[in-house]
């Protein structure tokens, strides 16, 4: 399985389509500048890792990723590789597009080698979810319309990632900074959630009613 892709030369990836590609124009026009802006970041490398972080394999994997998060909400990682906590022994590694082996990246291979024959798994999940970026001072208000978590900054700190539901869609919600969120819906829910977010953003395009 590992030997199927021989990334010797650059593949022609021009034909691949991201899950919310059909909404690109709608995201453009639906974004409210300086208030709430929405876009899709396509094809990020994502790896599902299941391992006990205290085991030998867990420690080897941690040395590849730059640590594994210890508890719910935590994000570990180093450089442009981040590891999100999904469960006590389940993590999601998020890395740039180029980290994928189809583009010559070695992240997956390094993780597989770190796991070796230890207990756990390393699975390429890059096509499982897509990434939405929601930014702007109103982004929290947009999310609060369909998320039951307490998103107030005194509870949800920047650099926290949580599995939850937005608009009844299961997502991983990652607060990057005070006014920017990354949302990871599964590919098949991307269009629905994209349209749901656009609808939630719409009111901010009009001037506030005094």
């Amino acid at each position: 399985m590992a030997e199927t892709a021989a990334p010797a030369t650059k593949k022609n990836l021009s034909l691949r389509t991201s899950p919310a590609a059909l909404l690109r124009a709608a995201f453009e026009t639906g974004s409210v500048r300086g208030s709430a802006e929405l876009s899709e970041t396509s094809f990020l490398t994502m790896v599902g890792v299941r391992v006990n972080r205290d085991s030998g394999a867990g420690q080897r994997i941690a040395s590849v990723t730059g640590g594994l998060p210890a508890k719910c909400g935590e994000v570990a990682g180093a450089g442009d590789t981040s590891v999100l906590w999904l469960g006590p022994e389940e993590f999601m590694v998020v890395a740039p597009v180029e980290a994928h082996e189809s583009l010559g990246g070695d992240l997956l291979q390094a993780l597989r080698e770190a796991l070796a024959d230890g207990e756990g798994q390393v699975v390429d999940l890059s096509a499982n979810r897509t990434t939405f970026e929601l930014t702007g001072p109103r982004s929290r208000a947009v999310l609060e319309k369909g998320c039951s978590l307490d998103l107030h900054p005194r509870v949800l700190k920047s650099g926290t990632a949580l599995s939850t539901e937005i608009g009844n869609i299961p997502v991983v919600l990652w607060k990057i900074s005070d006014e920017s969120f990354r949302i990871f819906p599964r590919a098949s829910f991307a269009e629905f959630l994209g349209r749901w977010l656009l609808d939630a953003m719409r009111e901010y395009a009009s001037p506030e009613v005094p």
Partner: protein
Amino acid sequence: MLLISCPNCGSRDETEFHYGGQAHVPYPENPNELNDVEWSRYLFYRENTKGAFAERWLHSTGCRQWFNMLRDTVTYDIQAIYPMGTPRPDSPAATSSNPGTKPGTTAPEGATK
């Protein structure tokens, strides 16, 4: 809407969870020795407790881990949340002399699943 406190994730809405039925139903020691009636008792027959009831829950949208909960089926009061495989904690309702609760409903054997 119940607010359920997941041992891993903290308080979350009930919609993030799935119900797993009665807790502490031990897998038969030797299933081959059971007759059909006994096997059906194990598979399908569960308590229908009015009051404190030990049940399994799964945090399906969050950490995807199972845990046990002691919940009052009348008031929906969540009395305890405790890990899989640990015995049912004695609840105040269970120890008080309540003529409505049947004897022998507490099965303190360690749960297997």
